[in-house]
């Protein structure tokens, strides 16, 4: 079975480490905040100008002056700080954020990512995504492995306009956890019940498959 949105978030959360500053993109990445293990502390960065993002507010706590990068109302966690957009992207561009999680339309074997524009169809803009992929060393891309029609999104060359060049090393799809190095995809883990053959079939770019591919575990 392919992973649910919640399982994708759970698997990403397993990569969190104590003391990490983390930027979570809109969509599935946002759900990762729900699965931070109890025995570690992480601090969430929201690129509109908040480090130490808390949970969503109660009805009484709603404050129009306190939102996240998805423009949702939020609260501040203990030890939070506030700053302007230049400071926020200094943190990001300067490589001070330990882990960035964001979505994509396509990735390829050279670590290129396309996530912000479908010419003629979707032209909304990149927001902070180009800064995030250029600035972070440790990025996890969460995405579906293929389209509904079975067209692979893990390619030898991205076909859509790029968000960043050569900057992606880890991809978690609904089928597999994959590392990108030396111009190839490397299969690290597979979703429970998903066969290696299925993953090979839906991966257009060159995929290196080790002899044993463990199933992801969701203890």
């Amino acid at each position: 079975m392919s992973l649910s949105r919640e399982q994708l978030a759970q698997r990403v959360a397993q990569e969190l480490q104590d003391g990490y500053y983390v930027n979570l993109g809109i969509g599935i990445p946002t759900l990762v905040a729900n699965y931070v293990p109890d025995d570690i502390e992480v601090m969430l960065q929201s690129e509109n100008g908040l480090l130490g993002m808390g949970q969503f507010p109660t009805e009484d706590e709603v404050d129009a002056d306190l939102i996240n990068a998805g423009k949702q109302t939020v609260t501040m966690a203990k030890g939070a700080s506030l700053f302007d957009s230049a400071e926020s992207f200094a943190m990001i561009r300067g490589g001070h954020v330990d882990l960035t999680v964001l979505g994509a339309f396509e990735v390829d074997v050279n670590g290129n990512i396309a996530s912000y524009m479908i010419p003629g169809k979707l032209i909304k803009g990149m927001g902070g995504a180009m800064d995030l992929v250029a600035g972070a060393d440790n990025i996890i891309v969460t995405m579906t492995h293929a389209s509904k029609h079975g067209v692979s999104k893990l390619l030898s060359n991205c076909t859509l306009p790029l968000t960043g060049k050569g900057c992606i090393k880890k991809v978690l799809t609904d089928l597999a956890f994959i590392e990108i190095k030396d111009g190839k995809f490397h299969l690290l883990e597979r979703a429970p019940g998903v066969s290696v053959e299925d993953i090979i079939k839906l991966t257009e770019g060159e995929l290196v498959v080790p002899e044993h591919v463990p199933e992801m575990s969701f203890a």
Partner: protein
Amino acid sequence: MAGFNKVVHTYEEAMAGLEDNMTVIAGGFGLSGNPEGLIKEIKRKGTKGITLVSNNCGTTEHGLGILLFDKQIKKMVASYVGENANFEAQMMSGELEVELTPQGTLAEKMRAGGAGIPAFFTATGYGTPVAEGKEEREFNGRNYILEEAITGDFAIVKAWKADTYGNLVFRKTARNFNPLAATAGKITVVEVEEIVEPGELDPDEIHTPGIYVNRLIQGTFEKIIEQRTVRSE
């Protein structure tokens, strides 16, 4: 003698001198931290041909989006322009020119513009459509593109509190691009919720010193929330 008193009492005074084909830099992130009264005054004046620099262009009905009703914007420099049907229509028809700019690069362009730095190198956008036509340079084995600073004929800014000298304090994430916009306008106009006397703000608490501010007006704000999200308990 006005001295350092920047306070004006009407929106006409606040936006006096804004003419067709000028560049306006606006603070705000979505509808958060918007100088609402100043935007409405630009709409009322009917100024045309504006090059507008702001992270977003409001929504279909609110914020900077209202300047699209009468097609007042010629060119938009922004990082994200979703959530606005008029924007999409005018962009697709070619009436509105759009320069998509990464959010961090946009913030830095304003900061640099206000700080007298004409351009800077950044890795953001290298190898993407953003890099087209821009100088590239390698530093320490990494590739960067040259991005030019932005200044505006006007900057419109929303702050929480100010003293009459134009020293500004912002509130929570409504700060966003506002302090950067404030530095980058030839004429910087700030709309605030509360104006106090000089000396009432702790100098250590001031986010933007009054030197950047030309005009100050007290406004009232709707503060529309785009994505009201609450937890149940």
